[in-house]
């Protein structure tokens, strides 16, 4: 990989000076300077809420800065809308794709353009789109409807959309968050080929590994301020970057005690279930989790993970198959039965499923035991006992909040997750189903949540960890299953990344091993 040579510095394309942006209660960007050279991949690194996306949304014309100047090729520019930025050659690929699902790839690319004038002669434009895709290794069928495409393909459409508009500067906001490992490889290839054609790329990420792999220089933001301005990657290390990002030393190794797994707690046998649209989401899936082990479930988002968690916890009905918990058949039993039998659930959607946002911390933590002593009985809740219980949990789970009467909607992501974990773990569950427990949390909070999960493993729970963060799965799990289109592709004991990657894109383990053997 090429790195920028400081002595023969390339011309500066974008220069942002003293950018200030305030949101209610937050200073998102505090006099931020940022420079982008021609033909480089410049990583913008920082924790969630560090102000990376804000800064780039300003550059892309979506937000207006309260103070500061933007220079494009040395000339001051002022963007009032994304359209202005696109016209100036700056395109942004957002985390949430801006694509119209019911329209074709070509239609999405042509949206908002002056050409074609009136009649959509899509045939002609489809060819153009295909040619452009060919040039940058962005293969996607121009006539396919967006909803038919995988997330990776949709991302390619987003990039094509910007290239079609002649973007010279491409801003990628957390582009790898939704991709499988092989797709990430493809994306990196594309980014490199774009740089070769003289385009410049800003790569927003909070994942050190990727930043180290793809970028030439890196700017680090912490709480809206620059802690490292465009340092070449050659001159830095992973530990150094982590320190700049978090503001303290970060341990990358979690303390995990060797543990002998006990008897089978959860056994899922050949289940089928439908998703919200009535389409099959789980297609004959089987797995088991034993006492004292963390079993990871890897997979690209939308392959049935959410449905599986819902089926196990009783939120969704299966159409066939069995779910057995501690020897008892709990198939299609109501949630309440599951809770009584010791199933805990840390759901993906913290604010709508995991908590009741307008209720206090107290009300949220007693949701599963409000009708049992000491907190209450069938008729009344003992408010004093409840708030004492909540205060105990607040102390032992380090929930940082002035009072347990605070509505949980006011909590940060990390604290909210601690409230959920406090409720779910304090009941000493026999089975804990955790879906994306660290998504969107910053590095410090992630560490805390992961420690809690491991402590629960030692306490003898069976834990099913559903996550899209491979690194997390590898460091926490004793075994990893890979799910693809509602089926288990195979099981990995040794954390073989290559195997996991292949299975995530739909190759069953039998085929992988057959190939490896031959």
């Amino acid at each position, binding site marked *: 990989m090429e790195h920028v040579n400081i002595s023969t510095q390339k011309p500066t394309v974008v220069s942002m000076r003293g950018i200030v942006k305030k949101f209610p209660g937050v200073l998102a960007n505090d006099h931020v300077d940022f420079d982008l050279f021609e033909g480089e991949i410049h990583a913008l690194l920082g924790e969630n809420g560090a102000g990376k996306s804000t800064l780039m949304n300003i550059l892309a014309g979506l937000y207006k800065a309260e103070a500061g100047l933007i220079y494009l090729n040395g000339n001051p520019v002022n963007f009032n809308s*994304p359209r202005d930025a696109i016209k100036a050659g700056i395109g942004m690929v957002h985390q949430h794709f801006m694509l*119209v699902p019911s329209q074709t790839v070509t239609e999405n690319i042509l949206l*908002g353009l002056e050409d074609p004038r009136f009649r959509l002669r899509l045939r002609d434009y489809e060819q153009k789109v295909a040619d452009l895709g060919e040039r940058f290794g962005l293969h996607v069928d121009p006539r396919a409807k967006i909803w038919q495409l995988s997330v990776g393909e949709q991302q390619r459409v987003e990039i094509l959309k910007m290239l079609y508009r002649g973007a010279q500067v491409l801003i990628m906001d957390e582009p790898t968050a939704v991709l499988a490992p092989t797709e990430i490889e493809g994306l990196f290839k594309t980014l490199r080929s774009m740089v070769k054609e003289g385009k410049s790329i800003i790569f927003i990420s909070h994942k050190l590994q990727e930043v180290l792999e793809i970028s030439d220089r890196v700017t680090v933001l912490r709480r809206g301020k620059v802690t490292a301005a465009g340092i070449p990657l050659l001159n830095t290390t992973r530990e150094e970057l982590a320190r700049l990002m978090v503001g303290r030393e970060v341990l990358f190794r979690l303390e995990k005690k060797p543990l002998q797994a006990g008897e089978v707690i959860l056994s899922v046998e050949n289940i089928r279930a439908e998703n919200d*649209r*009535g389409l099959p989401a789980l297609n004959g899936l089987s797995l088991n989790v034993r006492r004292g082990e963390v079993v990871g479930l890897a997979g690209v988002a939308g392959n049935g993970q959410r449905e599986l968690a819902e089926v196990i916890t009783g939120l969704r009905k299966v159409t066939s198959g069995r779910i057995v918990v501690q020897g008892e058949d709990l198939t299609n039993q109501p949630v309440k039965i599951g809770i009584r039998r010791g199933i805990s659930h840390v759901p993906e959607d913290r604010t709508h499923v995991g908590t009741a946002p307008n209720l206090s911390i107290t009300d949220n933590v007693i949701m599963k035991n409000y009708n049992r002593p000491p907190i209450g009985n069938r008729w009344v809740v003992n408010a004093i006992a409840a708030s004492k219980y909540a205060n105990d949990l607040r102390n032992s789970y380090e929930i940082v909040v002035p009072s347990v009467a605070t509505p949980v909607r006011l909590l940060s992501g990390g604290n909210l997750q601690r409230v959920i974990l406090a409720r779910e773990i304090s009941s000493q569950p026999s089975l804990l189903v955790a879906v994306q427990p660290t998504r969107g949390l910053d590095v410090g909070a992630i560490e805390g949540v992961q420690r809690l999960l491991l402590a629960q493993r030692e306490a003898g729970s069976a834990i099913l960890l559903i996550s899209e963060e491979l690194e997390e799965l590898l460091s926490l799990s004793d075994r990893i299953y890979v799910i693809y289109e509602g089926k288990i592709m195979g099981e990995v004991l040794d954390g073989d990344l290559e195997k996991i990657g292949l299975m995530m894109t739909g190759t069953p383990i039998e085929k992988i091993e057959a190939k490896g053997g031959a």
Partner: protein
Amino acid sequence: MDLIIILQAGVASGTVLLFATIGEIFAERSGVLNLGIEGMMLVGAMTSFSVTLKTGNPWIGVAAAMLAAGLISQVHAFISITLQADQVVSGLSVSFLGTGLSLVLGEGLSKAGTISLLPSFSVPLLSQIPVLGPVFFTKQSVLVYIGYVIFPLCWYFINNTRPGMHLRAVGEYPAAADALGINVYRLRYLYVFVGGVFAGVAGATISLAVSPGWFSELTTAGQGWIAVGLVIFAQWNPLRAAFGSYVFGALRRLILDIQGPTMLLGVANPFYYNPYYGFFLQMIPYAFTIIVLILGSREAMRKRMGAPAALGLPYIRGQRGL
């Protein structure tokens, strides 16, 4: 009871539904549900009748109806797009507003006497085709013929032109359209206006062609609501809307005519001998509308039928999702 005559009259009365439904398709495709059609149609019917009475020229009447209903629609546009109020509530109030306005301003019009109507004619050659000729091309009002031309054009516009593509994008995912510089608010105002204009023409079609005159709220007799149901039935597609409109027009006519003869299919006609049965028949289109609206309000069903994803949701820039 002559089937050809029923179908012929059905096509004429279906034209009213056709205009109203297509107008609503435009509004809903842009993401704005406008339940005010009934009110806008009444304003259109009343305006066209009274303007024609004054000027003696039905074309000026039609133009006035388009303008008046279009203006009323902008009340809904302002409330639901700019003020971002609930579209159902706003649409209902616009319906009441239109109904009330037309009743007050149309006071006395029912006894105003006869006016000159829009021309009717038969199309040479085409009217000679067996069955289709008499049904579609014989002694129909000029508006009926305009209807034949307009629905395929609207279909083409929505699916095969650049502005049509923008219209669909704004109704499906306004944030994506906005990010590419399409003015979501302007387009929504525009297509709500287009919807109003079509509703105005639908109203004028009643009072100047299909059943001439002004009969206060019985002029439309709830056809605006049937149009709301037809939009869902048509899955927001003008071609299917045309099919549904003509079928419903014919059904309306059949329900009227079936009460005429003493014998029906060789047995005594129950609808003739007991007129109360007729009320049940007349309920059919409205019952259908209620059923379609119930089905259409179910999220899963709407997705399956391809409802515009942002239908009913105000667009607020910078808000996640839609």
